[in-house]
């Protein structure tokens, strides 16, 4: 029987079946050579946002829930991580854990409120809760108000490895990003992930099959908030600052934009989207004032013209999964 199959077809289908693994290998290789071609600080910024966008994508892409307040977990995690590192003198890994834990707790509270409403109301509730916590951050003492928390020490990883060296920091960020990315990949391809997709496609049917969809939605929400927290905490350590920008609604909009540009519901889309948007912000710095307008135009163009996003379009053209 084996001989009947044309070997070229078999090679092609093997390539198609493994498209995600191949793309992952390409991404890892790119991250290894990238610091020799681009500024490591730029790459680390993009990686933090890439993880943030991937976390956001778990909800919109696989459960069909649009959270318009993800800056809440990102920003508050970065405040807590910065505070832990600066005031409590935590080592960086413990500071990141502190921020992550805070994001998980906030996600649990906000998520259990938000999943009480569906569709468009869900988006409005998450946005409103995030705005509430923005005002709390504005008024709270420990966040430093308009100044934020500045001069956060990077410290020594595990008390041993000095992170003030840019390349060491870069390696740590890459490891954190890849760990988060693989974790998300595992969630999506687990039986739990299949139930999430069933909820996205037809919640009523998932309920009739006996799934307690509210619990699945809440768990997905908490996971998403937690991973956004990892991204926010890491960013605070890398850039040694936590500020109001990261909890403001514009940040929630930016992560939506990154994911939309890359492709909702694709594994690699949010990563591509984050790199594109961050690169745009860095290289179009002279157009400072126009960034808002350009972002708006990209939003409109994505919604009207290519709803699959860049990675989604490529995957569609090549008929592969990415």
């Amino acid at each position, binding site marked *: 029987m084996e001989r009947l199959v044309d070997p070229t077809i078999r090679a092609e289908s093997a390539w198609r079946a493994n498209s995600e693994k191949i793309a992952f290998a390409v991404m890892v290789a790119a991250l290894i050579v990238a610091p020799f071609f681009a500024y490591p600080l730029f790459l680390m910024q993009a990686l933090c946002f890439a993880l943030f966008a991937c976390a956001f994508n778990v909800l919109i892409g696989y459960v069909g829930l649009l959270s318009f307040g993800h800056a809440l977990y990102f920003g508050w995690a970065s405040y807590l991580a910065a505070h832990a590192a600066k005031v409590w003198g935590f080592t960086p890994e413990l500071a990141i854990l502190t921020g992550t834990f805070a994001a998980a707790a906030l996600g649990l509270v906000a998520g259990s409120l938000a999943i009480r*409403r*569906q569709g468009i109301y869900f988006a409005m509730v998450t946005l409103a809760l995030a705005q509430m916590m923005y*005002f709390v951050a504005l008024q709270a003492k420990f966040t430093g108000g308009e100044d934020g928390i500045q001069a956060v020490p990077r410290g020594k990883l595990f008390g041993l490895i000095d992170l003030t060296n840019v390349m060491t920091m870069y390696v740590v960020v890459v490891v954190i990003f890849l760990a988060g990315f693989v974790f998300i990949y595992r969630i999506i391809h687990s039986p739990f992930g299949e139930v999430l997709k069933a909820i996205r496609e037809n919640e009523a049917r998932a309920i009739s099959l006996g799934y307690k969809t509210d619990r699945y939605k809440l768990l997905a929400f908490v996971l998403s908030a937690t991973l956004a927290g990892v991204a926010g905490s890491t960013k605070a350590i890398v850039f040694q600052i936590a500020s109001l920008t990261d909890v403001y609604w514009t940040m929630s909009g930016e992560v939506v934009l990154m994911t939309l540009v890359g492709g909702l519901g694709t594994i690699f889309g949010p990563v591509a989207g984050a790199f594109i948007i961050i690169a745009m912000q860095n290289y179009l710095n002279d157009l400072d004032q126009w960034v808002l307008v350009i972002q708006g135009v990209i939003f409109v163009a994505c919604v009207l013209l290519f709803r699959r996003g860049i990675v989604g379009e490529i995957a569609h053209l090549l008929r592969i999964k990415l």
Partner: protein
Amino acid sequence: MFEIFGIPSQALFGQLLIGLINGSFYALLSLGLAVIFGMLNIINFTHGAQYMMGAFAAYLLLQHTGIGYWPALIVAPILVGITGMIVERTMLQWLYKLDHLYGLLLTFGLALIIEGVARNYYGSAGLPYTVPESLQGGRNLGFMFLPNYRAWVVVASLTICLGTWFVIERTRLGANLRAATENPTLVRAFGINVPRMITLTYGFGVALAAFAGVMAAPIYNVSPQMGAELIIVVFAVVVIGGMGSILGAIITGFGLGVIEGLTKVFFPEASNTVIFVIMAIVLLVRPAGLFGRRA
């Protein structure tokens, strides 16, 4: 001068009035959102930007053509409403068959564009717009001083709100509109041009936002970001009230404005967050909203 709960009456009634004013804007804006949502099934994120456009239209009309407050109150909403109808025809109409979320994302993008353009030309600082001469000054009510313009804002917005309620709930036009919301295909079979109705409804909702913007111009400064944070509060108002009922939207809007004003007197630290806290409580107690039907 007397005191209530240890607060001078002047301060208390002053904040109550500010609460009523804010409530007027919440009511007008959430009413517009509800009308648009009913017909288009889209949450209009651009609403805040269109409110800002109304204020800017009034400002520009005065600066460049010398058209004053009273004509602007009519002209600005019509102009902004027309831009809304153009947006509906060129963009929104392609999204009706898709998930609601795309409507939210598109209108969010439009809001960024409008705010960004306004910020480029007029900076972030506010531009002053003076109160029309006929409404300057105020009267002393004995327990507080009532500026004429503020009294006018509350009365005008209440009138517009109730007028909208009357048209939608009590007239033939409103009956057609409600029928088209329930079952557009059937209403079309009766020979009513539903797509045109949708365009006009969006234009009307946008005009309401612009009307609120013109009224706000003399109270707050005219600035590019005046609508951005307001719209998030209005979203919370809409979640609390539910979008099923016009009267519900009006009551919730004014009620929350007053509660916010009172919070400013008794617990000023929480005045920014009180509406969101109420939203959280309502979600726990009555998930469908105060006036909403379970979806």
